[in-house]
């Protein structure tokens, strides 16, 4: 079973690789829209990437208002 910290770390690594942002520039409490510089379509890409990686379903309405990596990790962790 992954810990919340593992999940968070994997999200940061995955997001950095997918959007070609240096991993060390991303921090858990940062606004990921700004940190990754992503628009609405890229946000959907991130959601799909995370679902595929963690093999979970993330209804997008549950993510409404979520903008930092740590809260996002919590939402994923709750579905593992």
């Amino acid at each position, binding site marked *: 079973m992954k810990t919340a910290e593992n999940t968070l770390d994997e999200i940061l690594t995955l997001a950095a690789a997918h959007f070609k942002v240096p991993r060390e520039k991303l921090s858990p409490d940062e606004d990921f*829209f700004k940190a990754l510089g*992503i*628009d*609405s*379509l890229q*946000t*959907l*890409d991130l*959601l*799909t*990437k995370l*679902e*595929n990686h963690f093999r979970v*379903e993330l*209804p*997008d*309405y549950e*993510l*409404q208002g979520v903008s930092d990596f740590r809260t996002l990790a919590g939402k994923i962790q709750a579905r593992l």
Partner: protein
Amino acid sequence: MKQFKGEALSWELANGVIELALHREPCNELGSVSLVELEQFAAALDDPEGDLEKDAHALILYSDLKCGFCAGADLRELFERSQAMDKPQALQGVRDFLERIHRVLNRIDASPLTTIAAVHGVTFGGGFELALVCDLIIADKMARFCFPELRLGLIPGFGGIPRLKRDLGNAVVRDLLLTGRSFNAGKAQQIGLVSQVVGEGEALRAARATAAQLGKFDRYTAAAAKKFIKPIPYDDLRNEIDIFCELFSRPAVQAGLKRFVESTGAQPYLP
């Protein structure tokens, strides 16, 4: 006519397969230009001298754009046009548009060709409805599907509910429609909507391989099998237009469209 290059889409017949590519920036939104070119495609299928449908056994629909297959109806155009007209005129305009696009989609649905949607990325609203017209959906693992219309105070208007109902159980249709949530290709395959999920960037290649295989079968038999197994829900499709138009006349829809058009947020499809 064996090929066409337009503003919103292009198509070409080669080796018995018609490939229709969508390429209207930003993400193949279906508006008046797309509709006219889809009508031209349907007319080419109907043209007895063109032999387009006669010389083919399969049709592949795909997108040339990186963002995805199609983000749905052109809501900006819909909002701007409806603002420029009085209410009865706007409503008539919407009804005319829906009737025209239904004619085109029904024509593709009823085609004797085996039709394949090769989708990737955003496949939302009208884009999802375009894919649902096809006999097979082959999805890139990064494809994402959604019917977000209820968030705007509408229902899908391009035949989405009747065609989804044709293919899936009613409980699944209610979930997708009433929650308006988006879902990935794996989920789409799990519920029986998608026939193959392939790696990133592989949907068109897989569709071509499938179309090549279909070319080995007798065309007449394939068309007979399709006609038998894939009835077109004409009555429900008519009802859908009426319900859509009734809902469109409500002030909540104009407010929802305005909010969407003016949104600069990262999740504009969420109300």
